[in-house]
């Protein structure tokens, strides 16, 4: 069986599945049970400075969007960092780490953006024996208004500065957790590494209003008739997180640097995808909050089954494998010509491909007698919309045209040569072909 053991920044864990800093990791009771359930590591719920802890709202703090059967697709929260005293958390962290030396235990931190505050808390964290720290530059609500969380994460200079302080006053690995509420994720990542961060982790939650109560005319979750924006997470955010991870993984300034991926990881497959895009491990929050700690067992079994099928002995074998295949649009091969093809035996004749193509795309699907749906190659631009809307998996496929064939849409002979936009005659900035 595949070996799921991971080494992330020298921190070993029996599998790459860590719980993200959030309610599942808010206290000793949870974390012990999480470890018993099989989680490879946890990032403890974010700690703040010594003194009176923050307070949370006393009404609802989560909202959700659902699929038809109330399958939770996205979660939004207005929770703050831990609302328990610092000392309590530190004592618990110390005890738990001692009892679970084989698991990763990272402490998440968010303190005001001044050197004193960091200097004060870091030695206390060091003493717990935890394996590293994660800097929470991500929370988009509540803390940002106080100049912490995403308010710091949106300013690369601050990120670098705080990271440098941490590297100065703390001896173990420093992970910088990034907020996605920013235009270009590469800038904060570069800043973190410029400040000598050991790794970045992403994404934290996305600024969001999850829904509006149309009777009370207020956003949800609602307290006394009012709501506020919160942080969005869960399966729905995965595509955004995947892209951000990939951007960092292929940015020449940060390529090859360790990444801990977060955002919508719900199954083994999600984890494998993030890792293929360069993440050394993954962190999970919403999936655990939806299904409980036991979900990790599916992730573990699924990932090792897949690795066995593919012949990967350890996670390092496939981490980053997809990164070289992520490119910019301008480098995509414009001579790669495909046509949609409908498998008539699999087709159930719903006509969705037709409606989609006829109404919103290229009028390239015929509806023939007896509801036979066929692609008109002379119009098909291979956009893939029909594939996406067809309810039957693999019923519509994209078939590549062979070199030498004539594309009936363009009347041109398909060539086997690679050519992209940079050299295309329609590109005003095209480099002259040699």
């Amino acid at each position, binding site marked *: 069986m595949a070996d799921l053991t991971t080494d992330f920044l020298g921190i070993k864990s029996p599998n790459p599945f860590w719980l993200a800093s959030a309610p599942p990791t808010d206290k000793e009771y949870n974390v012990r049970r999480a470890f018993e359930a099989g989680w490879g590591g946890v990032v403890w719920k974010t700690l703040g400075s010594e003194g009176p802890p923050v307070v949370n709202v006393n009404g609802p703090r989560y909202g959700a969007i659902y*699929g*038809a*059967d*109330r399958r939770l697709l996205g979660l939004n929260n207005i929770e703050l960092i831990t609302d328990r005293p610092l000392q309590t958390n530190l004592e618990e962290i110390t005890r738990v780490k001692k009892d679970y030396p084989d698991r990763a235990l990272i402490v998440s931190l968010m303190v005001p953006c001044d050197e004193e505050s960091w200097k004060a808390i870091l030695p206390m964290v060091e003493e717990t024996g935890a394996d590293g720290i994660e800097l929470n530059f991500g929370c988009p609500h509540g803390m940002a208004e106080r100049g912490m969380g995403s308010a710091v994460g949106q300013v690369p200079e601050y990120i670098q500065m705080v990271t440098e302080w941490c590297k100065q006053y703390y001896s173990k690995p420093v992970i910088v957790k990034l907020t996605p509420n920013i235009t270009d994720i590469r800038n904060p990542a570069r800043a973190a590494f410029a400040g000598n961060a050991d790794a970045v982790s992403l994404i934290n939650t996305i600024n969001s209003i999850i829904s509006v109560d149309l009777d009370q005319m207020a956003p949800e979750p609602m307290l006394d008739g009012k709501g506020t924006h919160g942080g969005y997470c869960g399966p729905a955010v995965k595509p955004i997180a995947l892209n951000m991870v990939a951007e960092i993984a292929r940015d020449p300034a940060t390529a090859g640097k360790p990444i801990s991926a977060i955002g919508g990881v719900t199954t083994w497959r999600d984890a494998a995808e993030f890792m293929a895009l360069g993440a050394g491990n993954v962190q999970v929050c919403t999936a655990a909050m939806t299904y409980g700690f036991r979900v990790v067992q599916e992730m573990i079994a699924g990932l090792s089954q897949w690795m066995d099928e593919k012949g990967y002995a350890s996670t390092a074998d496939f981490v980053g494998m997809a990164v070289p295949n992520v490119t910019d649009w301008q480098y995509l091969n414009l001579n790669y010509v495909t046509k949609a093809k409908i498998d008539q035996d699999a087709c*159930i*004749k*719903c*006509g*969705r491909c*037709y*409606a989609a193509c006829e109404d919103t795309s290229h009028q390239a699907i015929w*509806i023939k007698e007896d*509801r036979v749906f066929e692609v008109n190659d002379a119009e098909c631009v291979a956009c893939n919309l029909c594939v996406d809307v067809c*309810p*039957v998996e693999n019923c519509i496929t994209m078939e590549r045209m062979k070199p030498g064939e004539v594309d009936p849409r363009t009347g041109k002979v398909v060539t086997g040569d690679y050519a992209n936009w940079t050299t295309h005659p329609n590109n005003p900035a095209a480099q002259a072909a040699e």
Partner: protein
Amino acid sequence: MAHGHQASGIAAGRLPEEDIAANFSDLHAPYAPHEAAVAADRCYFCYDAPCVTACPTDIDIPMFIRQIQTGQPETAARTILGQNILGGMCARVCPTETLCEEVCVRETAEGKPVEIGRLQRYATDTLMAQDVHPFTRAEPTGRRVAVVGAGPAGLSCAHRLAMLGHDVTIFEAKGKPGGLNEFGIAAYKSTDDFAAREVDWLLRIGGISIETGKSLGAGLTLDGLTGGHDAVFLSIGLGGVNALRAPGEDLPGAQDAVEFIAELRQADSLAALAVGRNVVVIGGGMTAVDAAVQSKLLGAENVTIAYRRDRASMPASRFEQDLAAAKGVKLMFNVMPVAILGDGAVTGIELEYTAVQNGRVAGTGERVTLAADQVFKAIGQTLDGAPDGVALEGGKIAVTGAGRTSVAGIWAGGDCASGGDDLTVTAVAEGRDAAMDIHSALTA
């Protein structure tokens, strides 16, 4: 003397009252809102959806299902009722397995169609429970239309005409409106007096008066009706029954199935209704299945349906056959009655096995005798009391187009008219379409 199940002859009280009540509860329980949302989500919102083509009333099924999915069963109900004013009843009684659901692409894909009928019921029940009638009348036209027969065809025609501003009088021979919705449909398909409630709700459009106890042919004449009205719609159903033409068919205990079902539907107490210990039903349609199943549900010990052809030829759908079998009814194929046996009352029935020779059913000579206290004849209904002067075709009132008879100014639809299946939903469609045609004629 044995009681309950084993009581001999035709007797009431074969089952405790609670069991009978449970037996006659809803065949398909109504959806709870979440179930409806999940069921609705299975619909693919097909293009030019095959289910719509298969619905005789052309309900925009993907649209109403989507409206349920977005949390508005009321809007969904308007979509349904705009096409089919008896959408509530049709949701309960349509043989969906041979109509809309048969051609649902999910039936093709996985042998499990979207449950269109149940979703339709969810939508229409929701609206009707709010005591809302979703349509209003157009400005009165001053035109008057006579509708003969208050079954689904007549009610549908009357509602549409009233909506268009015409004044409608329905003449109904029986003491109650509803036609077979009230007197024929199996009790477990139309529970809680739904047929009567639906008629009351339908009449809220206004402009429709129903005169019960008024029968064309007995008191009313076609000339009288055409004289006092701008148009006449005939929707008298099939009031007659085919005779068995076997010795013994007049013995006490031998009865028309439709008559038994009508008694059952009108009974104040089902527990007080008598049924045989051994029941044999002759026939193979929906009426045969309904008579057999309901006999079983009343507590008959042995119930057999004897059908003269093979299973594939049976007019009752496979779903109906399986329902009968599941309730404990025995299905016998390729047998025909030779004689109903008994001395003063039915005690048995003699059947002969059949084979199809040159396309005709013929006896093979092999016979079998079954014990029977009660024999129900369900071998088809016939047109009874068609007015003179209106041309017939194949035993029904000949119609062309949207229900036009051979006589100008007279339309016909539903079971009494030629063409179409004898189904509630077809009757509704024909009534509606005739109303539109009458409207065009009256406003031309």
